[in-house]
């Protein structure tokens, strides 16, 4: 049925086109306009430029105002505030350039339309003019480069804070996985060859730093502390995009990347700002990675320091939820497992109760783990 309608309308359109074509040639033969350089259409086309421009401008201003309501809320990270202001200032500058050049373009098109008996001005060049409009953009662009450079350097060469929270974010088809250092503050080593269905990160059980690492279902981060994302992928490219924080960094298999930022508002505060009580920060993928690329949503929760600490303390380590892997730990390291190991796995005394700090994780082990990253 739809096919039929489409077919019929196509035929009708063809007929109309054909008629326009014939009628127009006949009329112009009658009028003898074939010999004239321009016909009435020249006037019509000329006037349509300023008309469509004016309407376009009205649409532009009307909709830009309306659309702002659907933009992302104000930046939820500190560096993002600068990104936004640089973006909007640049946008105003280029919009002005866009409008001015278009006024000239369309105004000239209208004003200098063909008139019988007029002659165009022979004006092949003018070095002063050319110099002016080379230099002005050059200066403007230099200014933009300087500000861009400052922001870019600040974002990409951050001063790493001692109390930063390090989180490993790993992309895979088609989900994000995150890993926290656990109580020892060090994310353990991994090897992609050790990956299996439970050990998604390929955590190396010969590294004690892995014993307390945990892999939650949501990212929780404390407001006001520096967050250091260690980013990688295990199959194809992905890209970490935190739109509310103005953060983006590709996740590359075989080449870890990183991004540091500091959250400015908690989820609750942002809910108040946006007036949306169910507001959630989201993590999206922005590098095409296959069929599920559009659905790699992950939730980020920003909370006050105390809430974060509380949440952190509640997390069970990955090893604890996957006790089978204790068997993969070399005998001599089993003593460092921070929780009671099921009887069969180890005969040794297990000193740990879950609230204690990591028992013995030595400094040298930590350093080694850091260096290996």
């Amino acid at each position: 049925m739809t096919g039929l309608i489409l077919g019929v309308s196509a035929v009708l359109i063809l007929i109309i086109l054909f008629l326009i074509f014939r009628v127009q040639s006949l009329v112009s033969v009658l009028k003898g306009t074939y010999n004239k350089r321009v016909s009435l259409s020249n006037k019509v086309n000329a006037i349509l430029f300023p008309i469509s421009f004016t309407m376009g401008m009205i649409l532009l201003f009307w909709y830009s105002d309306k659309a702002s309501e659907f933009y992302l809320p104000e930046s939820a990270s500190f560096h993002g505030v600068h990104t936004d202001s640089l973006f909007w200032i640049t946008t105003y500058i280029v919009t002005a350039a866009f409008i001015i050049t278009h006024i000239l373009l369309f105004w000239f098109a209208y004003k200098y339309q063909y008139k019988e008996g007029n002659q165009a001005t022979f004006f092949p060049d003018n070095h002063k003019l050319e110099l002016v409009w080379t230099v002005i953009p050059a200066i403007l662009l230099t200014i933009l480069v300087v500000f861009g450079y400052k922001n870019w350097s600040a974002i990409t060469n951050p001063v790493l804070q001692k109390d930063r929270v390090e989180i490993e974010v790993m992309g895979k088809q088609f989900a994000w996985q995150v890993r926290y250092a656990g109580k020892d503050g060090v994310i353990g080593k991994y090897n992609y060859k050790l990956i299996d269905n439970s050990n998604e990160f390929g955590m190396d059980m010969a590294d004690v730093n892995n014993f307390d690492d945990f892999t939650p279902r949501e990212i929780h981060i404390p407001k006001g502390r520096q967050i250091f994302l260690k980013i990688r992928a295990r199959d194809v490219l992905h890209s970490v995009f935190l739109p509310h924080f103005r953060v983006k960094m590709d996740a590359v298999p075989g080449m870890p990347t990183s991004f540091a930022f500091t959250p400015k508002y908690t989820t609750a505060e942002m809910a108040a700002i946006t007036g949306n009580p169910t507001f959630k920060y989201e993590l999206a993928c922005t590098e095409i990675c296959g069929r599920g690329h559009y659905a790699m949503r992950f939730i980020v929760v920003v909370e006050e320091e105390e809430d974060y600490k509380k949440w952190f303390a509640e997390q069970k380590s990955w090893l604890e939820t996957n006790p089978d892997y204790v068997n993969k730990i070399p005998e001599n390291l089993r003593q460092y497992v921070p929780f009671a190991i099921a009887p069969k796995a180890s005969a040794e005394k297990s000193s740990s109760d879950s609230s204690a700090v990591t028992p013995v994780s030595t400094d040298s082990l930590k350093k080694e783990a850091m260096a290996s990253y």
Partner: protein
Amino acid sequence: MATLDIHAHTADTHDHHDEHEHEHHEQGFIAKYIFSEDHKTIAKQFLISGLFWALIGGSFSAIFRLQLGFPDANLEWLKPLLGEWIQNGKLDPEFYLALVTMHGTIMVFFVLTAGLSGTFSNFLIPLQVGARDMASGFLNMLSYWFFFISSVLMFISLFIETGPASGGWVIYPPLSALPQAMSGSGLGMTLWLSSMAIFIVSSLLGSINYITTIINLRTVGMTFTRLPLTIWAFFLTAIIGVLSFPVLFSAALLLIFDRSFGTSFYLSEIYIGGQALHNMGGSPILFQHLFWFLGHPEVYIVLLPALGITSEIISTNSRKPIFGYKAMIGSMMGITFLSFIVWAHHMFVTGMNPFLGSVFMLLTLIIAVPSAVKAFNYITTLWRGNIVFTPAMLFSIGLVSFFISGGVTGIILGNAALDIQLHDTYYVVAHFHLVMGSASFFGFLAGVYHWFPKMFGRMLDEKLGYIHFWLSFIGIYLVFFPMHYIGIAGFPRRYYSFTSYEAFSTFGDLNMFISIAAITTLSAQLIFGFNFFYSIFKGRKSTQNPWSSNTLEWTAPIIPGHGNWEGDIPHVYRWPYDYSKPGAKEDFIMQNVPLSQTPESNLPFEKDLALEEK
């Protein structure tokens, strides 16, 4: 000069009997229309193939726009066309990516590289520099047929069961390297790579020919500073092509090795499909560097010919010399050079060294200067002109508009600090569709409207041309301008659907609006299709110089035969932009008119030249 004897030479390559004195011997159908060595026929072959691909590439965008604008619609009615790719009335997400990938590949390479450059470089270079044909008609023919083979392979890949390549037109590995990663990375990707390898051969053969012809076969008096800007643009485009396409070739070759022979150029530490691969030490980033070393210049390969065409058309129809001829050449040279050293602005967030990012930001913003100069020169050319709005002129003005509106957002995206947020969002889609897609496409259309009479000896219908222009011009803005808003709101590109995110759940209405505008704009192109094919046969007959233009092609017969000019090749005595010269009898003086014949309009420096002519 070499130009003078090329005609006889081309003639006897076809000669099966010894009739050397008989110059315009009849060629058989095959030699004339299929395996032709005549640059005009080859140009038409590229043109028709380009239009064919534009139809396919355009229809793909209509299909995925349906998905984006009407995510809940039942697409069961497309089933006869798409078969298994429609499941329960829904487009398969992987097929969505396949459509996007093929749309991009087809538009960039098959329509705007082969279709645009192939058509107009081939058609105009010999006619405008005053040559009987290309330097090597044979290589030129090969260039088309390699393109044809490449097209056939790409076309076949659309119909295979696992689908065509789907990893985006940039085919980043590992996604494109691993058939486990998506079904399009299987046979579809193999076909993509083979097709592109052959495409590169075609492009190189063409480019080498263009360069040689322009350097060696210019007619007497056609110095480089008397070349029309079209020729300058084609010349620089060909140079960019020769220098950058081989890099894509090597990138593709290494990818083929990784795919088929177990090497690890781009692959490292991968666990996929429940299995850890052996590859270690490769770098996916290496591929991106190689790809964009072509990929960015490619943007200019697509755009420069369109700008050249526009320069010619705007000058002719403003009845004024192009403003700043030398500055135009200078800025095109600047763009050509700079286009090779800005590629990594596509890679700001790949984790590359931040300092390198700063360098590329600086270089990228520098390239904006020559681009701005070009825009100003176009506008000044209109100033105090006597403008005739032919359809070609309208499309050229449209191009200038898109070039500016798409160009200014390049200043934002080229700023590394801002690109962090905007990279891979719809903001980028808006930017490159205006500056590269629409601008180049308008250049292509302008060229067709302008040179159609030279190609087919008939005129395209003007009224239909006007309707086509206004629908396309307004339509394109309605399609792509709103994408800026969607991009600012953070919507990522290559997303099948936005419903899974709260942040991207807005703008449903706008997306619907864009889709309607897109499908309308695409349908408007059918007006052009009708006009084109109908006019080839039934269009009004053209006169020899319908636009009162200065360049040499309009001195050739209305339908030039093999060898272009019947008698001697015209000599050239002046630059191509003597429009409305003070004192002149008419508002144009063709390039082959000696200065000694126009004493009334000669400028001071031309008076001496006029004496020398004797």
